């Protein structure tokens, strides 16, 4: 499985489980992680209360597989790539995206993590609708 899609936010137990699993990679010296969190942005006097994510699940799996193939081919020191994305409603302060790269040394772990996050934003078939505190909603694009 190349991506885990959670029903609602990416929970702490999923994150803990993946970190604990990485301990079995005895030749890994570092893990670089990125957690994307829903931010209480304010625009036009309205505050983001939550984001609703919709995911094209069948395509997400193959898109994540391609992302991993790119990372493994560009970063020879990378041992493992984990991608978790939320589907459905995620409240402000909750986690919508989790990426973890395990590598022999820290430099490639950090570079590969940054690149994976960019590829996730470009290539993963996911859409988001901001839900404001006044009940209004707005489809949002990545900038």
């Amino acid at each position, binding site marked *: 499985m190349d991506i885990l899609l959670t029903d609602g936010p990416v929970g702490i137990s999923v994150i803990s489980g993946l970190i604990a699993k990485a301990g079995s990679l005895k030749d890994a010296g570092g893990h670089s992680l990125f957690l994307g969190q829903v931010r209480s942005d304010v625009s036009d006097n309205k505050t983001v209360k939550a984001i609703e994510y919709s995911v094209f699940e069948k395509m997400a799996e193959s898109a994540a597989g391609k992302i991993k193939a790119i990372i493994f081919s560009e970063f020879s020191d990378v041992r493992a790539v984990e991608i978790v994305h939320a589907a459905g409603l995620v409240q402000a302060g909750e986690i919508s995206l989790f990426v973890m790269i395990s590598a022999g040394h820290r430099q490639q772990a950090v570079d590969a993590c940054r690149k994976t996050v960019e590829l996730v934003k470009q290539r993963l078939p996911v859409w988001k609708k901001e839900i404001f505190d006044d009940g209004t909603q707005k489809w949002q*694009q990545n900038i």
Partner: protein
Amino acid sequence: MEIEVFFFGVLADVTGIRQKHYNDVGSFADLRHRIEDEFPEIVHYTFRIAVNNEIVNDEPLLSGGDEVALLPPFAGG
């Protein structure tokens, strides 16, 4: 041929549906005209096309049973 169409992101709101079955589709152009006739608002939105979960160019050759998805710009993360 029979084609299953999926509407994602804002297009699900524009059309009011997530999925629709089309019968007697002659070509992709034919399918596109039928969708635009039914949901005229859709022409104001940018989207790409996936056939059977793979993004394709604008005028793909369809086969019976294909799944066509209309994909607004991705916004994950």
